[in-house]
């Protein structure tokens, strides 16, 4: 079994200023995010992505840079920035979650959903019965 490629880079005559990255096993989830980060990069002239065909699980990302800059470097930097951003989101979420749980006094009990749903059924039927009597 051969290992499938993840990434292919197409350039013209090895000129790394303008390159098309073909990423396999990826979709809009990653490609749109990378495009968004690269669009706010001052050294990047043009960035865009496309999904060549919805049946094929791959994306093409096109990056064109300013003078003397490598598109691979910019792409690499964008991915690093995304990791940093995700880290700060993770930290913020953890902190806020702990605060919320403390405030609301949520206990970490494990309740069996079986028992809960049976109790719920019984309560419903009790209400019905009561309604019928009344």
């Amino acid at each position, binding site marked *: *079994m051969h290992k499938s490629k993840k990434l292919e880079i197409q350039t013209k005559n090895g*000129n790394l200023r303008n390159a098309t990255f073909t990423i396999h096993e990826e979709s809009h989830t990653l490609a749109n995010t990378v495009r968004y980060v690269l669009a706010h990069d001052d050294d990047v002239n043009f960035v865009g992505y496309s999904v060549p065909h919805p049946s094929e699980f791959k994306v093409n990302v096109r990056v064109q840079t*300013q003078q003397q800059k490598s598109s691979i470097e910019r792409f690499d930097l964008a991915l690093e920035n995304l990791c940093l951003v995700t880290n*700060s989101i993770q930290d913020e979420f953890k902190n806020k979650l702990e605060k919320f749980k403390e405030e609301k006094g949520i206990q970490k009990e494990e309740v069996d*959903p079986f*028992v809960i749903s049976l109790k719920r059924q019984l309560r419903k039927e*009790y209400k019905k019965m009561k309604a019928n009597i009344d």
Partner: protein
Amino acid sequence: MSINVGKEKISQVLDGEILEFNPNNFSENFSIEIEKLTKDRMEFVMRGIEAPLANAFRRILLSDIPTIAIETISIKNNTSVIQDEVLAHRLGLIPINVDPKHFQYRPKQPLQKQDKNSRPEISNATEENTLLFNLHVRCLKKTDWEKIKKSRELLLQKQEQNKEMNIEKEEEEEKENKLNVEIESGSESEDEQEESEIDERAKECVEKILTQRAKTLINHRVLSSDLVWVPIGNQQTLFPKGIKPVLPDILIAKLNEGQEIDLECEAVKGTGRDHAKWCPVCTASYRMLPSIKLKRELTKNKSKKLVKTCPMKVFDIEDGLLEIKNSRKCTMCRECLRGDYGVELGLVKNEFYFWIESTGIIPPEELFQQALEIFKEKCVNLKNNLQNFTQKKKEFNENEEEMNYD
């Protein structure tokens, strides 16, 4: 978004604000507020983040978080009205309450030439990647059932030490207990007056509400609680409490007298991208928070009219002044735009109201954290591939031309 053309910079202006993305400043402007958290559902607000990132997390929640669901079944007997494939489809959709971290993906079978004499073997199934469930339900008349019970008791007295008969007795006791579970479960409750009242009345209630059909038949409804876990290998020690579906009362099929369902299920790890049964969320969605602005001052009569026209009661008059009270309740119905009230309606592009409804397998706060982790993994994986690529190219180019930058 900015496009560099020579020295000039053209920036896209969104709603009068220039939204920039700076990874260094990100944590200063970013904040999360958790609004609601139950064991099934989480609602929270994210500020300082934009659509591509928020959408990425939503997509990962739907498609890339693994869970475990029934994939293949071997049917020994199915005399019910439900077709085999429909039954298989329904069984696959039942959420199973087990943490998928303990399991691995089952590798796909390699293509092999099959001889005429060889039997197809499921050789990739091991205790590390498969869960076995058994479903055996037979619908009988109560009177027949009691006869069978009596005859079996007699046989038991005759053959006490026979192992097979003991196993059958356990199966029958399970079926017998199924009826009693609905009535006796009330006795498991805590010491509260209300609950004891409910128990007694519930017993009467349950008996009354059971239909004629149900009175004369047992096991006429096949529920998800009838799925029995069969531990293989060391699974019994890993999961001492047992493995069950998330809810016990999911209706799988209905049987009439004499009909039987007897099958074995294999549950496997997978992701929502493959089939929706592996999706860990009922849904994960977001909406952007509305931004409502009043462009000019209004007369008293007009402000009263405006307060009336809004169906969600977003506007309110306090101290004679018109105020925007509950901007979050706005559903963007645009009723306030119809009259000449000078209302400006829009969406705040960097505030997202997220809600995650879990199926019960993984709690929603853990789901979001897993989604963030998976997103990071994707970025890191791609980064490593990039580095490999540049290294390979360097080795290749050392013998040939240098990489040129124009």
